[in-house]
């Protein structure tokens, strides 16, 4: 079931650097929201806040109406079992073959027999176009294949929310397209709320139901791709067209 996610007045600092300064975002349940903005604007921090890898200095992160600030360790564990995360680097466990990577959460959190876990892992690998490759090690895969395995691992337990951190950065255009199509088809098949952090134009326009643009730690604008392309703010239009507006730097 898709999850409702909302940031209310969220602030986050790293030392003297203010990364998020009172961010308010309501992510549409079951839709793909793409968070964009230049490097260092706090996009990935939002994902880390949603995962509980970092805590906000002020404001609230609400998931299905619950404030994550009140979570205790067992609550975090239960919550994370409902989330899938695709890391920028893939972050596959290099000590195990990719089938075990995909079946990891099932192995750790369910009492399913090994054969059943392997079957589910194979199904998920098939979904990302890697059927029959379960025995390969992450080191034997290309960057694009690693991202696909990371997606298969993230959706192994049919999560209510899938987070993607720069899923197409560093990939060639064709592999990027494959990953973008995969993000869309996963969202359709699972109905999960998807949050994609990227600054790749192709990823933005091929995947987004809604776009949120951040700049210097604040929300500069949000809406559908068409709405933002027609934004009166030249910084938003410039970012989405790949041109440098006046006063950008």
């Amino acid at each position, binding site marked *: 079931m898709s999850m409702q996610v909302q940031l209310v007045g969220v602030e986050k600092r790293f030392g003297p650097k203010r990364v998020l300064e009172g961010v308010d975002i309501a992510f549409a349940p079951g839709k793909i929201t793409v968070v964009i903005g230049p490097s260092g604007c706090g996009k990935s921090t939002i994902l880390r806040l949603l*995962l*509980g*890898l970092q805590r906000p200095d002020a404001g609230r992160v609400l998931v299905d109406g619950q404030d994550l600030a009140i979570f205790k360790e067992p609550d*975090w*564990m*239960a919550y*994370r*079992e409902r*989330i*899938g*995360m695709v*890391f*920028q*680097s893939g*972050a*596959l*466990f*290099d000590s195990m073959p990719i089938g075990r990577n995909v079946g*990891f*959460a099932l192995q*750790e*959190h369910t009492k399913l027999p090994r054969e059943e876990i392997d079957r589910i892992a194979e199904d998920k690998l098939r979904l990302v176009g890697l059927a029959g490759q379960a025995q390969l090690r992450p080191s034997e895969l290309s960057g694009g294949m690693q991202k696909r395995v990371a997606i298969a*691992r993230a959706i192994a337990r049919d999560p209510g929310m899938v987070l993607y951190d720069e899923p197409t950065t560093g990939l060639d255009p064709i592999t990027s397209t494959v990953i973008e199509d995969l993000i869309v088809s996963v969202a359709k098949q699972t109905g999960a709320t998807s949050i994609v952090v990227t600054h790749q134009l192709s990823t933005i326009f091929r995947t987004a139901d809604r776009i949120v643009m951040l700049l210097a730690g604040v929300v500069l604008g949000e809406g559908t791709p068409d709405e933002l392309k027609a934004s009166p703010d030249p910084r938003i239009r410039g970012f989405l067209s790949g041109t440098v507006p006046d006063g950008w730097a």
Partner: protein
Amino acid sequence: MNLFESVGEPVLGFFEAIGEYTLFTLRTSKLLLRGRIHWRNTLAQMAFIGVDSLPIALLTALSVGMVFTLETANEFIRYGATSVIGGAAALTIVRELGPTLTGVVFAGRVSAAIAAELGTMKVTEQIDALVSLAADPLRFLVLPRVLACVTMLPLLAFLSDAAGIAGGYGIAVYLKGVSPLVYAESVRSLIGPDDVAKGLLKAAIFGLVVAIVGSHKGMNARGGAEGVGAATTSAVVVSLITIFISNYFLSSVLFPGAGAH
């Protein structure tokens, strides 16, 4: 930087580090007390840490036992104390050299391996990935390594004791002409089960030091390959220093009448 800052900063850093290691150990111990042991990983670590460290640990102990006896046998024979050659070697090996040298081998081999592996996992986001998959890195990664070190280091120290005594036996009997019976009787009369047990207790504590330091350094590695390298080097240095310092205090407490046999 004034005088107070230049003295105060390292002192504060030292106590901060002590606090961090203590908290890290307590959090890991809490999992153990709750019975939240990841058995599959623990057994895998036991195999890796124990079995793979066996040859180098035995070789070190054998060599030290032989050299120790080679150096001391002549003096004992000259003063007519042939009957204590075996006992002196065994006592030194069982109380000190066995546990400490096995601890040193572990600090070099195992603490470095733990720091390098966990450090690489940290900088490649694999530890964050574990968290995102609702797996506790302390339970999944750290506790298995702690249990493996705390159980395997005493086991290896025990085997090292045997190898060291055997090495001394070889030198005393075949090179220095000491009677096998005299050597064996000397060993039997000068060391008791409590010497062995206390030596192994020290080894278990060194195992805890190696695992905690290696894990903590690895889990806090930053900045890519350079950070992993720094964490690995630091893990070895801190493990060694901690083993040497704690060895003095442990020996003082466990063997208060050392030399009074």
